[in-house]
């Protein structure tokens, strides 16, 4: 395939895929009770964004590499985020013995 040549997939379809993926991720993040799965859902949303970035890198008005590079950065930051997030989770788990979101509530002791 390479860098040139027409891509027949309609841009709108890829964006729609991204949007649906994003909404599924959002739903997960809002409803999952396990903190790990909330983090995972957020990764899903980041992926949805990445799909859009890569799509526009190829199918935008002036195609160039910037979109791909951005998605690389996103992947890196996501990795950092999940590392720190999981570390926090472990720390919290040691104290609270739970990974339930509902129990990590400082407002209501």
């Amino acid at each position, binding site marked *: 395939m390479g860098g040139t040549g027409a891509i027949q997939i309609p841009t709108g379809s890829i964006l729609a895929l991204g949007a649906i993926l994003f909404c599924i991720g*959002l739903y997960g*993040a*809002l*409803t999952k009770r396990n903190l790990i799965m*909330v983090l995972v859902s957020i990764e899903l949303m980041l992926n949805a964004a990445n799909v859009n970035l890569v799509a526009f890198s190829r199918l935008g008005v002036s195609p160039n590499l910037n979109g791909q590079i951005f998605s690389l950065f996103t992947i890196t930051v996501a990795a950092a985020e999940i590392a720190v997030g999981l570390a926090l989770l472990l720390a919290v788990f040691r104290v609270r013995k739970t990974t339930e*979101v*509902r129990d990590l*509530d*400082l*407002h*209501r002791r």
Partner: protein
Amino acid sequence: MVWWIPGFPLIAFAITLLVGRRLAEPVVAGIAVMATLISFVLSTILLLHPGTPGAVTQLDWLTVGQTHIGFGMQTSHLNALMAFVVSLVSTLVLLYSRGYMAGDERFSVYYQYLNLFVFSMLGLVLSANLLELYIFWEMVGLCSYLLVGFWFFKPEAALAAKKSFIVTRIGDTGLFAGIVLLWLASGSFNFDAVFQAAQSPGFGLGWLSGSGLITLVAILVFLGAVGKSAQFPLHVWLPDAMEGPTPVSALIHAATMVAAGVYLVARMFPLFALSHAALTTVAWIGGVTALLAALIALTQRDIKRVIAYSTVSQLGYMMMALGAGAYAYGVFHLFTHAFFKALLFLTAGSVIHALGGEQDLFKMGGLAGKLPITRWTFLAAALALAGIFPLSGFWSKDAILTALLAGGHGILYAVGLITAFCTAFYIFRLYFLAFAGTPRDEALYAHAHEGGWVMTVPQVVLGVLAVMAGWWNTPIGGHPIERYLLGDAGTSFFAGTSAGDIGHVYPENVLWMVISLVVALAGIGLAAWMYGARADQRAAAAASAAGPLYRVSLRKFYLDEIYESSVVRAGKWLARIADGLDRFVIQSIVYLASRMTYAAGWGLRLLQTGQVQTYGVVAALGLFVLIAIAMLRGGVM
């Protein structure tokens, strides 16, 4: 040269203000008297060579919008005469005060205030425009306030000082409004510009014009004079102002400051002359004041209060003259009155000084032997006040009565005659009670003595003037003062107003002269009958016979009580309401607002579940709403 007339007292004020406390009494008094004496000499030169009436020397003071306001000195016959009177009486009173105030611990402060007063008063009579006049007008009021309250530790003095300022302030506010309205209508504060504008047909403001405006403005200006010259109904402050040192009463509350109201009406005469209604108001207020004050004076027991009411009454006389259109006669009476009334106060001061501060007439008596100079000078002043031929008061009072009758003010003439009778009666009642008969209080009598030369010399000089001042306007000399004063007419001083408009002049009528003389003599006779030797029972009998009338006069027609229970009380109530409103109502509204904020916070706290996911749901819904709005509107902006 004109600048130096008020200039020297100002310099003396500055010296006494800065270093007065460290100087000895004679030095302080010496500086003050010398400065005033120089002013007097300069005023005399000015009186003799007044130059072109209406000439102005001035500096640019302030520009408001496009109006350039100056600050300067204006000379004219009227101003020169006023400056002469003011500086002459001031010099004598300052000299007299050296003896009267000797030993007071705030001696230099006293002279400081007096110097400031002389400066302001001279500035007032030489002012080049209305705003400047108002400035000095308030300055003399300030000096009066300070000097009335000079013995501040006496609560009565403190109250009297406050009362004098506030009551005159009511009048001054009218003057203030009048000046501002005149500026609006004429675009200038200068007298000639104002007079010219008032005479022009287009004179007016949007909402009022022509004669209506002139009357309104003239009455507002007259309101200032009513306050300052203690005319009814604002006369209540002057008798109370007698709480100040007696020389102050002589200078400020008899000869000069209280006459400023008369000067003001005279100065603004072309304006008053344009409005019949305003002149009538002036005449009637003057008449009511003259009679009312004379009636009150009949029964007062305090020697200074009698003279104070006499001053109010005589000022009413001057106002009557001005209101009747007799400009020159009003000013002439001001001129003679300044001398004999200042003298009355100085002699009264001498009596009080001799008796160690006692002011009650019914504790005096028989002082003629102990205080010969005071007795004779008092007698001269009393005769002048009563209007006995050929003393000064006779000529000026008679001129006024003549003008009233000839001018067609029959009722006012009657008022004037009754007042003249009362005047003669109360002043000789005073004379007989204080100087004639036997001492009523031996302890006081024993210590009585004449003051030093600083006190007697001014009395003698004023005594001579009280006798002779009137001779400068006798028919024999061809009315020199009248002619002198009317020399201002037709000049720029009065914006070209002709002599006929300025002041009516009437020939003497021997019959009317005799009538007024007889009335005055009758008054003296009655006083002698009631209060002369071996006559105490008659006075008491008369008082009990008069019954309620006597009490009304003694209680000053209850005016103080009426004001106290109406205006003052209403004001205090409003003040209390405003204070309460502010402290309780407005504060509780603020408090309520803060409580509502707390309540809202408490309510909103329920939404803060602490569940991140709940917040996320809300955010998601919000995001949906935002995107939906953007989509429906077809763009973000």
